[in-house]
């Protein structure tokens, strides 16, 4: 077998046809960003290593017809050397580690097959030739920037060889682990040694179980238990009983989440909720024939180590939730929310083991872009929050909404049905992902847990989705779930929880040889779904998959013995009682406390003019335009977008929520929004949570969603909850979830938590994320043709504010630019919040509203400016009309307070009476008029001009920070 090496270069741009070397240019930019200016030029090449029995003539055809573009690229067979006579050149080649998924290689193999020859292996690499003097230290820095240790190997110089693609075969060697005679300390050590992340009580419970069986466990049994019982899979903290001390008052919860988040849903008992907190996503009614489901997941730890792969598999993973809900939903919209440290940092400020926040941001966005776009699912909603406490633990929330017929919302497994794994093959990727996600990160994680990082292949998932939907339509399987965190172990374990299952592990298709039976069982390789198939349907369903090149393999069957039995080549390698696996986890009781913070308001000098402050607030990373990100996502594929993430006269103004219309034959739509503000949590997580709920609801109300058909999702991301104060802040947030959901009549339908988001630096210093609760909303829009956007529509229209402005600058962005926190956090008035939302909806439904914008981060001045520059129009604001509390006398509070439940509404003069009549009962006032002259002028109640800025300048301040 001969190995052929192909190098593909851009053709120099000298001829009219040439294209410039975009890859090289990007890398040169990256190197300059590192502060290295001795590199003058970078040339990039794509490298393909192909093993196959063919001659040079055919090799040349592969190079010319397949690998290189005939017009703008050249190919070279063999290893090219840098042209002589130029400045010193350094060659860097970046290869994937053995066994890492390489989608391009798979496609090249197929394509060579189409050309009539087969080949044994294909691998791809990136090659960069750096021209210019660099020293070893600089080279190291560059390599670190260009490659990722977790998944890639770097080869430097012309003579170095890439790693071999061949891995040894695995031979069965059954491993048992002696635990029954160990003491508590030894059990803890064993857990640590095996990376099980199980604590002493859990290890003791497992020991007792095996003592009762009279034998020692095998490694696969311990790994399966560790995975099923991991924080990531079972959410033991949120389900534990909690003794909460709140300013000295004692409150007890038997099961924290059940009595708060779930409790609200139970109390509301909405008939339009179809399946909540049970399945992979929460399901509600859409119309008479269809249901929609929504799930938001986090993929934080993997994204910290490999931003691109971590975020890509984050979106890939969450897509499999709707696909694995009921009998499978079709994904129709993505949402992505990220938390990063502020990007303008020098490398000296970055602890070892942490990637630069700008690199994380770029990598995460690219990962979501490439996976989401390839899947053909529009990414329609999102947010980015910057705070330096996310330095060690960036947060990546990926969400997806799916649609399915109402009679396909539930699956049911029966004994005797076959366990079939569909989609991607199993590899070593993602091993220990679930357990690893359940601990704190340290500088060592990069090397120790590199295998926990997973690599995605969106096209495999897309093919799997296409075929599964066809099989679903024909009713060829009876239950489905995804292989998410916990892999086959968790998927088969969950599906067979009530019945039992037997799996023959050697039948699982592998990406490469060498995996042990345990690795097969716990691998978190992507793009795999598990279905239950009746034996009589096997032939039919197998054909559907085979027709479109999707791998589907029967790996076992569901039984009736209530046991999980694992075999490898006929040998039983593990057997656990399903009851112990799923219900054996000891129940926890934890202590939590929260003491109200003693904070005060800063003494800021009153000013006559707030132009500078407004521009500064606009240029904070949190408020700044995210257009750089949004444009990289396809937000229109599937043809259902009604309100896009950007709108207004130049298609670049902010919208409050996205609206999609999932069915071509119906004008019904879905509005998607989110709310999150960790700064408020620094004052009190209770009010942070209510503000988040209020904002997420306002978002969807602003575009036209019905207030009585809004479902909520919670995503708790917290630091180390073994600390009583940290857990206390979480309890405060959970309490607010209950109060908010009940008051608004908006049930939580699904959620997920990610705890232990803290990073321990080499010197022992801990960087903990702030309490971060993402609230996502999904609301029904009855008629998308009545949707409203935030951009001002025409001069002469009247501008109203609905909702009360209070002296609430605590945690505001205005205080942030002054490096202050303050004390007066916005407090949602739950009595008026719902009423206000209902009235705004009525006004939109009656078509009284020309535009509507949520007044939140940055306050009234920001909200009005956004509406103005989005519409390309000016506004004359008179604060005399501002409904406010008596203590809200300061101008800066009136302009920048982030009080909740406020909407800015543009109304045509002829609709004034109707609108005003409708608003009776909630605080509202006319605060201005839309003007032609493209300036924002705000006058105080005394008639003094306090802001006078051109909308062009405001827009520029808003767009500049993240124009990467």
């Amino acid at each position, binding site marked *: 077998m001969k190995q052929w090496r192909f190098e593909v270069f851009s053709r120099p741009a000298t*001829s009219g046809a040439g294209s410039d070397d975009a890859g090289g240019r990007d890398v040169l930019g990256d190197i300059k960003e590192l502060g290295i200016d001795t590199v003058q030029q970078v040339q990039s090449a794509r490298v393909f290593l192909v093993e196959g029995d063919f001659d040079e003539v055919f090799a040349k055809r592969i190079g010319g017809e397949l690998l290189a573009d005939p*017009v703008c690229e050249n190919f070279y067979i063999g290893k090219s050397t840098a042209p002589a006579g130029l400045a010193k050149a350094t060659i860097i080649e970046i290869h994937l580690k053995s066994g890492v998924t390489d989608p391009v290689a798979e496609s090249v193999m197929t394509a060579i097959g*189409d050309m009539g020859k087969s080949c044994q292996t294909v691998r791809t690499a990136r090659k960069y030739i750096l021209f210019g003097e660099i020293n070893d230290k600089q080279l190291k820095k560059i390599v670190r920037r260009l490659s990722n240790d977790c998944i890639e190997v770097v080869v430097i110089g012309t003579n170095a060889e890439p790693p071999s693609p061949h891995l040894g075969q695995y031979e069965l060697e059954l491993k048992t682990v002696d635990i029954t005679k160990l003491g508590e300390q030894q059990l803890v050590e064993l857990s640590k040694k095996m990376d099980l992340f199980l604590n002493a009580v859990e290890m003791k419970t497992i020991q007792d179980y095996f003592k009762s069986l009279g034998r020692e466990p095998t490694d696969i049994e311990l790994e399966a238990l560790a995975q099923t019982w991991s924080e990531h899979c079972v959410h033991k903290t949120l389900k534990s009983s909690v003794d909460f001390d709140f300013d000295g008052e004692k409150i007890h919860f038997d099961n924290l989440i059940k009595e708060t988040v779930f409790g609200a849903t139970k109390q509301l008992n909405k008939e339009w909720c179809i399946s909540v907190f049970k399945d992979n996503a929460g399901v509600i009614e859409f119309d008479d024939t269809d249901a929609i489901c929504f799930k938001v997941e986090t993929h934080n730890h993997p994204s910290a180590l490999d931003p691109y792969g971590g975020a890509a598999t984050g979106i890939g993973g969450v897509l499999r939730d709707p696909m694995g809900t009921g009998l499978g939903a079709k994904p129709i919209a993505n949402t992505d929310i990220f938390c990063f440290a502020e990007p303008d940092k020098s490398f000296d400020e970055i602890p070892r083991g942490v990637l630069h926040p700008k690199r994380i941001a770029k990598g995460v966005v690219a990962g979501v872009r490439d996976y989401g776009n390839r899947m053909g699912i529009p990414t329609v909603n999102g947010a980015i929050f910057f705070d330096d406490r996310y330095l060690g633990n960036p947060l990546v929330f990926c969400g997806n909404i799916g649609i399915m017929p109402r009679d396909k919302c539930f699956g049911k497994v029966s004994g005797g049905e076959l366990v079939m794994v569909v989609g991607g093959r199993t590899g070593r990727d993602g091993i220990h992902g679930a357990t690893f996600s359940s601990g704190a990160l340290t500088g060592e994680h990069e090397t120790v847990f590199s295998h926990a990082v997973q690599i995605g292949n969106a096209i495999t998932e897309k093919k799997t989705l296409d075929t599964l939907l066809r099989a679903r339509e024909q009713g060829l399987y009876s239950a489905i779930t995804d292989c998410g965190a916990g892999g086959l172990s968790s998927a088969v374990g969950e599906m067979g929880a009530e019945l039992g299952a037997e799996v023959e592990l050697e039948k699982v298709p592998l990406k490469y040889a060498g995996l042990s039976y345990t690795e097969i069982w716990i691998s978190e390789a992507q793009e795999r779904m598990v279905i239950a198939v009746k034996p009589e349907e096997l032939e039919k369903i197998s054909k559907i998959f085979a027709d479109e090149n999707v791998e589907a393999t029967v790996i076992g069957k569901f039984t009736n013995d209530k046991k999980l039995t694992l075999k490898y080549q006929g040998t039983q390698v593990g057997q656990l009682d399903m009851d112990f696996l799923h219900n054996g986890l000891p129940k926890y009781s934890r202590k939590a406390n929260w003491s109200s913070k003693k904070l005060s308001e800063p003494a800021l000098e009153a000013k006559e003019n707030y132009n500078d402050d407004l521009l500064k607030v606009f240029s904070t990373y949190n408020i700044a335009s995210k257009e750089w990100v949004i*444009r990289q996502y396809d937000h229109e594929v*599937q043809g259902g977008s009604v309100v896009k993430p950007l709108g207004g006269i130049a298609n670049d103004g902010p919208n409050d929520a996205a609206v999609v219309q999932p069915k071509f034959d119906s004008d019904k739509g879905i509005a998607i929004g989110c709310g999150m503000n960790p700064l408020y949590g620094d004052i009190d997580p209770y009010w942070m949570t209510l503000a988040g709920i209020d904002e997420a609801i306002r978002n969807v109300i602003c575009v036209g969603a019905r207030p009585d058909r809004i479902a909520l999702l919670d995503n708790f991301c917290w630091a180390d909850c073994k600390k009583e104060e940290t857990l206390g802040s979480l309890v405060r947030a959970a309490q607010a979830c209950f109060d908010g959901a009940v008051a608004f009549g908006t049930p939580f339908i699904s959620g997920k938590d990610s705890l232990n988001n803290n990073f321990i630096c080499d010197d022992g210093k801990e960087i903990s994320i702030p309490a971060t609760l993402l609230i996502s909303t999904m609301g029904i829009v009855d008629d998308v043709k009545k949707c409203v956007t935030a951009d001002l529509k025409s001069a002469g229209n009247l501008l109203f504010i609905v909702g009360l402005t209070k002296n609430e600058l605590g945690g505001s962005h205005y205080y942030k630019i002054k490096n202050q926190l303050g004390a007066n956090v916005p407090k949602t008035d739950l009595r008026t919040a719902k009423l206000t939302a209902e009235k705004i909806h009525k006004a939109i439904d009656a078509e009284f509203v020309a535009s509507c914008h949520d007044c939140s981060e940055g306050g009234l001045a920001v909200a009005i400016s956004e509406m103005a520059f989005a519409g390309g129009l000016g506004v004359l604001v008179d604060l005399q009309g501002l409904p406010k509390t008596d203590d809200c006398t300061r101008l800066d509070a009136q302009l920048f307070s982030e009080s909740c439940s406020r909407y800015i509404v543009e109304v045509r003069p002829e609709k004034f009476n109707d609108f005003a009549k409708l608003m009776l009962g909630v605080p509202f006032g006319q605060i201005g008029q839309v003007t032609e002259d493209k300036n924002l002028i705000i006058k105080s109640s005394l008639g003094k001009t306090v802001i006078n800025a051109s909308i062009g300048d405001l827009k520029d301040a808003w767009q500049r920070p993240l124009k990467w």
Partner: protein
Amino acid sequence: MTQINALVLRAAGINCDVETQHALQLAGAEAQRIHVNRIIGNPDLLDGFQILVIPGGFSYGDDVAAGKILANQIIHHLADRLREFIESGKIVLGICNGFQVLVKTGILGKIEPAGKQQITITYNDSGKFEDRWVYLEPSSEKCIFIEQGRRIYLPIAHGEGKVVFENEGVFEKVKADDRIVFRYVDEDGNFGPFPVNPNGSTDSIAGLCDSTGRVMGLMPHPERFVRFTQHPHWTRLGDKSRADGRTIFDNAVKYVKQNFL
């Protein structure tokens, strides 16, 4: 034949097939989505259709280069049948990824049928995938999909949309052959740099046809503007009937009606 049959080609990673089918149905065609494997298995299936559309997406992940793997598959399994399809007077439309495929199969990428590919589509000058709306000025007189003089507004969503020619001669030949169908312009019809020309395409080219005018490929997505609520700021517009993408499908159907029924 009494009805207009359109085939919307599916393949691994093609992802605009459903909305493309919908757009064809709105225009009055019976549209079916069929996987390329089925066509390769039974190329006679092509005979039942007068319109073939290769929709947008990321066929085979756009691995190696956009559209390349699917183009390779078509070259090695369907080239002759596709040529017959076109020679029999039927029509082919490639949208976004479908345009890339048509160029890379040579159908739109050559200037001589027997020659080699001399036109290609490569990475945007910005180096990024971008979703934005663009104005398109029609120019070809022979292309059956367009209406002369009617500037249209459509979204693009691609990372590789820059049309490039091997040399000036190839470009001149394509121009002389009236094969340039659409050019990116601003609202008033003027050419300009990014973002007016969103990818740096030669001569602001957004779409090309073959020498018959019956095979067209374009980067923008007409199937994404078949209802007025798809317009990026429809809430500002008075005209609630606008749906520029419809014209392309309507013209395709009209052509088949006139020539085949």
